């Protein structure tokens, strides 16, 4: 377990929520990737990621999210991002990733927007 990044998992209904807390960089991203892959391989097609506790994300972190998004898209699923802090949003904007992911200001809005089954 890493003290720099905490990845917590919970469920609301059938939607898994991954909460990221701390810093997501090249040393800590692999932990998050493992958790994300576990959910995807377990069959989850809609995953919400809660960014409210994340202080920093590097390109390594973006790579993990992008890889997850690509996998989910193959099975018709999606990754929804919620509660990005301004400095994190800026990183997404510069790289153009704000167009790749649906981004919501709060967790509840992200949960409310999940595609209907």
């Amino acid at each position: 377990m890493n003290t720099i990044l905490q990845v917590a998992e919970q469920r609301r209904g059938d939607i898994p929520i991954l909460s990221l807390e701390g810093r997501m960089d090249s040393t800590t991203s692999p932990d998050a990737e493992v958790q994300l892959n576990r959910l995807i391989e377990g069959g989850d097609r809609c995953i919400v990621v809660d960014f409210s506790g994340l202080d920093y994300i590097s390109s390594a972190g973006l790579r993990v999210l992008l890889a997850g998004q690509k996998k989910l898209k193959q099975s018709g699923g999606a990754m929804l991002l919620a509660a990005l802090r301004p400095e994190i949003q800026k990183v997404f904007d510069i790289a153009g990733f704000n167009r790749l992911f649906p981004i919501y200001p709060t967790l509840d809005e992200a949960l409310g927007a999940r595609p209907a089954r």
Partner: protein
Amino acid sequence: MLSEPISEFIVLFQMMCVVVVFAYLVTRTRFYNEILDGIFSWKNQLLLVLVFGIVSIYGSMSGVEIMGAPLNIRDIGPMVAGFVGGPLVGMGAGLIGAGYRMSMGGFSMVACSIATVLSGLLAGLIFLANRRQIPGVVLGVAAAIIIEGIHMGLVILISRPLSEAVTLVSDVAFPMIAANAAGIFIFGCITVDLQNKKKTAGERDRYQGELQRKNAELYIAREIQESFLPASLPSLPGYTLAAESRPAREVGGDFYDVLASPGGRVGLVIADVSDKGVPAALFMALSTTVMRASAAWHQRPRDAICDANALITRESSSGMFVTLFFCILDPGAGTITYVNAGHNPPLLVRNDGTIVSLSMTGIALGVDTEQTYEERSVDLGPGDMLVLYTDGVTEAEDASHQQFGDERLASLVRRERLRPAGEILAAIQAGVSAHTKAMPQYDDMTLVVLKVGS
């Protein structure tokens, strides 16, 4: 005066301490270690016999009366010798101990002497039965208990008068078995500890060897990667150009390039592969080559980037992407036409100090093969300057996680704008170093500075 049981216990404890010290010392001798490693030279075997024969003699000499019964640890020496060196060595040590015992006399002298030799022999047989491996602590202690039990049986079997023999054994059997088993336990633990230490040291040496080999490979990889960057910058009449790239590790994911285009035009590229280290470096090698080929093939930056993106995305399976800024400078017309694919917006610093950010015109490469890119143009006037950088510069942190930041970079380049490109680049690097102080470089840093005029 301490009561008898306590003073007897102290004497017993002292005997055990001698065993501990002796065990510690002997496990640091070369001959013992060679025996453990299986080097059974005659010299080693002889030393084993002599050393543990002396231990056996000590066992007889240090015999005490506990609760009125004679207690000794004579059998420990031959047992350890047998466990470690086999039946011949065990018996040898046993014979030395037995010889001394016989010289002490007493009604149990024959039984005890035979038992001492037998203990070395039996321990040695266990060594053989254990496939010539020293037995573990549990097996050793169990064997010691049985062997001492046999010793007691021999006393009853051989010594006469029988009544005295039975009394002796009933008084002394339990403490004898316990004391000798304890001594074997001590030897066993110290030897196992020693073997673990040697195994750990061996593993550490192996790992260090592998680490050296890998470092050597990375060093070579670094040299190869440096050869991908332009060996020298072309001279552009009317402009000064400076560039430098510093990977955070041996190899990195940043690159820059200066490409000659037909008609005297010059292409400038700066790019940053996601993450850093070996994976980023491999992806960087792919991306530089693709970029060079695309730029040579297409007139317009937009088309070059579209093509490069399609090729790079095909190769990107694990979410790897590249942020990239590509511009073509027309020196005669004094314009640059650019595409910014998700990269940190370069700073166009005007002669009068105003700063224009050349912001994103499309998403990073490697994400979507169908991605389209826009291109934009700006004019360059005398004294204007273009600063290209990667996020290793703006995100460089000091000890309290404060980033160097866009504002600091902007005010620094504004302040230094009257100097030639090379000095401006050096000033930026100095500014970042001053900010991070002693913190190690965290991310790859790349800078390209183009200045109009001298």
